[in-house]
């Protein structure tokens, strides 16, 4: 079956602009996660959804970042007034807890460049 997909794969924007990044999780996965990976670093947690609700948004760096998952499937990460420091690869993952095992499957990421 299809894996996690993310669009766009690359996004170049200017400082101060608004961007939206989209994630399509694996069908049937109830949990969805957003991470941010800077060059040479491991992914850092941003936000986690269980169904439609954000169960943990403690990783969002500030109020310029917001994410939604209105129907419990596709999620959109929104960044307002982008700054150069927002440049990174934004990774989405989904999971489904089954038989005591929970494994996060990652999408290909969106590479965001803020000029």
């Amino acid at each position, binding site marked *: 079956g299809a894996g996690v997909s993310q669009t766009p794969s690359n996004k170049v924007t200017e400082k101060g602009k608004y961007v939206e990044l989209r994630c399509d999780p694996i069908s049937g996965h109830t949990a969805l996660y957003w991470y941010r990976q800077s060059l040479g670093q*491991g*992914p*850092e*947690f941003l936000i986690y959804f269980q169904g439609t609700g954000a*169960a943990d948004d403690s990783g969002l760096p500030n109020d310029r970042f917001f994410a939604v998952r209105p129907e419990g499937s596709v999620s959109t990460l929104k960044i307002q007034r982008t700054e150069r420091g927002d440049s990174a690869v934004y990774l989405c993952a989904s999971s*489904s807890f089954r038989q005591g*095992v*929970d494994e996060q499957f990652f*999408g290909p990421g969106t590479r965001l460049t803020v000029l």
Partner: protein
Amino acid sequence: ELKVEQNPLFLSMQEGKNYTIYCNYSTTSDRLYWYRQDPGKSLESLFVLLSNGAVKQEGRLMASLDTKARLSTLHITAAVHDLSATYFCAVDPALTQGGSEKLVFGKGTKLTVNP
């Protein structure tokens, strides 16, 4: 705050040799994951370790977990060039039984296997 440390961060080895990557973490957890990342690609799940003493093997890679020592190892046997990649360990800080909530990643170990 959970901290995850990997070492070494860079590893250059010759084909046919053995080596071990270490992953230490700072707070109690019994869920640890290993991922592989090729340049410009997303994360590929390698192992899910869910209990003390868990050992899993796939091909030339073997992972183990010691929850009392808060240590996981990824052992490489008779390395081949195709194993060149960055390897991340990630710890789930959730203490309750149930689905994963977020992962805290190490900085990664960049492995280069030379012919």
